[in-house]
């Protein structure tokens, strides 16, 4: 089955070559950081130590867990319409969680010592659990997706021992972003993060941004290879995204209410800084309102059924959701947590070009995996005349 990844049209190799270049550039910058010091290369500083990269962790664990929204209906409730997209969703999750893990890895100041997290296990530290759940999710999805695909390739139903592993993978899915949310919501000094609704917000953004990215990639695959996952599947996923995104906006509204109705200055301060500027610092005002406008556009495009069913407007809505949530979760979440600092002043954070390229490199690794795995999966499905049902 792996031979499908080794044969491809020139555009396949050009795409992989492009991704490899991005990875090499990222690796160069990451390596340089450890020789000349992070202060000379990145935008991080004493008052904001987790920036763009941990933001990517927050975003991509959400994207990875979004696959649960496809896998759960198919395996728990026999929703046959998802037959062709389930394996693709699991492979998508593998790539996304890999990006998340790499995003954490590039943040480490002493990379050779990363294995100390396993050598000196610390059950009171959330990073310990994050490592376990992210690695577990990666392995589980890889096993599930590959075994089911291989069974399809051979024309048989998948082996019975896979069923408990599939159930475990579905239950494991929400844990990855709950644990990532716990990284933030248990810190007493950070008012923007110290809220119980952080984990539900992660869940809501996961179940909107993840499937949205999946829809965009699936429709892109349809354009490039002619493989159609099915109109009904796309429709259902679009409905899931709609509800999840509206719930996410509601949760944000709840946060704003608690902060402003309570009137506590330092509770309001991060939101004021992000949306209106604080003490003269207005760096992110434009970006945040742009994110809000994108969110509103997405809601309008998704709530109106005719627009949701139209592929063009659906793709626009999905891109708007992805961009809006990326700004809010991949970026603003970190800044809001650290600003204002413990002394109630603002030290702005602007990610630098090398910092951004390192993030792009981690994306390139994830998308390389997704490209290769999807190439294999789509080739298997297309090479079978009627490879529609995965018998369960």
């Amino acid at each position: 089955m792996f031979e499908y990844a080794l044969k491809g049209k020139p555009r396949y190799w050009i795409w992989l070559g492009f991704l490899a270049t991005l990875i090499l550039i990222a690796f160069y910058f990451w390596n340089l950081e450890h020789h000349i010091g992070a202060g000379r290369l990145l935008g991080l500083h004493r008052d904001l130590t987790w920036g763009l990269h941990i933001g990517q962790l927050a975003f991509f664990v959400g994207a990875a867990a979004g696959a649960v929204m496809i896998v759960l209906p198919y395996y728990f409730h026999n929703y046959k319409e998802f037959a062709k997209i389930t394996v693709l969703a699991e492979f998508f999750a593998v790539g996304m969680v890999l990006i998340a893990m790499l995003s954490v890895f590039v943040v480490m100041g002493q990379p050779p010592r990363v294995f100390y997290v396993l050598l000196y296990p610390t059950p009171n530290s959330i990073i310990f659990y994050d490592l376990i759940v992210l690695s577990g999710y990666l392995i589980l999805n890889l096993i599930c997706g590959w075994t089911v695909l291989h069974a399809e390739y051979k024309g048989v139903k998948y082996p019975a021992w896979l069923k408990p592993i599939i159930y475990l993978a579905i239950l494991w899915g929400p844990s990855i972003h709950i644990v990532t949310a716990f990284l933030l919501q248990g810190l007493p000094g950070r008012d923007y993060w110290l809220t119980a609704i952080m984990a539900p917000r992660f869940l809501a953004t996961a179940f909107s941004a993840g499937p949205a990215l999946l829809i965009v990639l699936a429709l892109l695959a349809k354009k490039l290879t002619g493989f159609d996952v099915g109109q009904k599947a796309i429709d259902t996923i679009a409905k899931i995204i709609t509800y999840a995104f509206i719930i996410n906006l509601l949760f944000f509204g709840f946060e704003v209410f608690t902060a402003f109705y309570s009137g506590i200055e330092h509770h309001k301060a991060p939101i004021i800084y992000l949306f209106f500027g604080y003490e003269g610092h207005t760096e992110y005002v434009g970006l945040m309102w742009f994110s809000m406008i994108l969110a509103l556009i997405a809601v309008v495009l998704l709530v109106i059924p005719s627009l949701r069913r139209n592929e063009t407007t659906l793709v626009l809505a999905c891109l708007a959701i992805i961009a809006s949530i990326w700004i809010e979760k991949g970026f603003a979440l970190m800044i809001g947590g650290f600003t204002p600092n413990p002394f109630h002043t603002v030290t702005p954070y602007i990610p630098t070009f090398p910092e951004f390229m390192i993030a792009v490199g981690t994306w390139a690794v994830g998308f390389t995996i997704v490209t290769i795995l999807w190439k294999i999966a789509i080739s298997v499905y297309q090479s079978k005349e009627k490879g529609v049902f995965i018998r369960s």
Partner: protein
Amino acid sequence: MAISRRDFLKVIGITGVTSAVATIGGVLIGRGEDILKEIKPASKVRWAMAIDTRQFKTDEDFQKVIEACHKAHNVPNIPDPIRQVKWIWVDTFEKAFPTIEHEYISEEIKKRKVLLLCNHCDNPPCVRVCPVKATFRRPDGVVVQDMHRCIGCKFCMAACPYGSRNYNFYPPREFLSQVNPEYPTRTTGVVEKCILCYERLDEGKQPYCVEASEGKMFFGNLNDPDSPVRKAILENIVIVRKPELTTKPMVFYII
């Protein structure tokens, strides 16, 4: 009724795996309890510090204390103002106590400068989050930073509500004009902070800052009613930074 060989083997296999997992799990849980015990140990000595902010009048008073610490511990002098490494430093009352400061307190107090350092909390969030126990709390209350084990994840810096921790954004040796040959430097990529001179405490001496303050800072064992810090707390009104977070800081400020 006879049981088939296959079913018998299945039963044996499942029993065997379950008992193995239960034993290993039991050992790990046991080990986990040991690990949890390390976080909340009991001890007779409880180090604490009281800083008399009224007695620090000139810049020189502060500089003597800061230099004593930074020179002894080879703390680099980073010119970049937003990426400094400072184990002990000076800031105004407003910045140090942002939740207590008020529009109508006296100007003199508002502009009074105070020394800031790691508070060596009794309930430290930084210790809770460190994934490798590079920062840990000793039984006598010192929150230590083990630079050998730090992986540079900066989780502790996110967790500290007081901004007391520093990351080495630059290779520190480039910014050291002179070194104390009896103490190591650090390298880029690890977190450092005030360690309450635990090496000196273990030999019965006082921290460098307390010595250099010439009586403006009190130090000692909180459990000993005759210690300078205990007396200072009993005889004066003291405040701590951000008490609402119940991190139970052990650095008291005499206002």
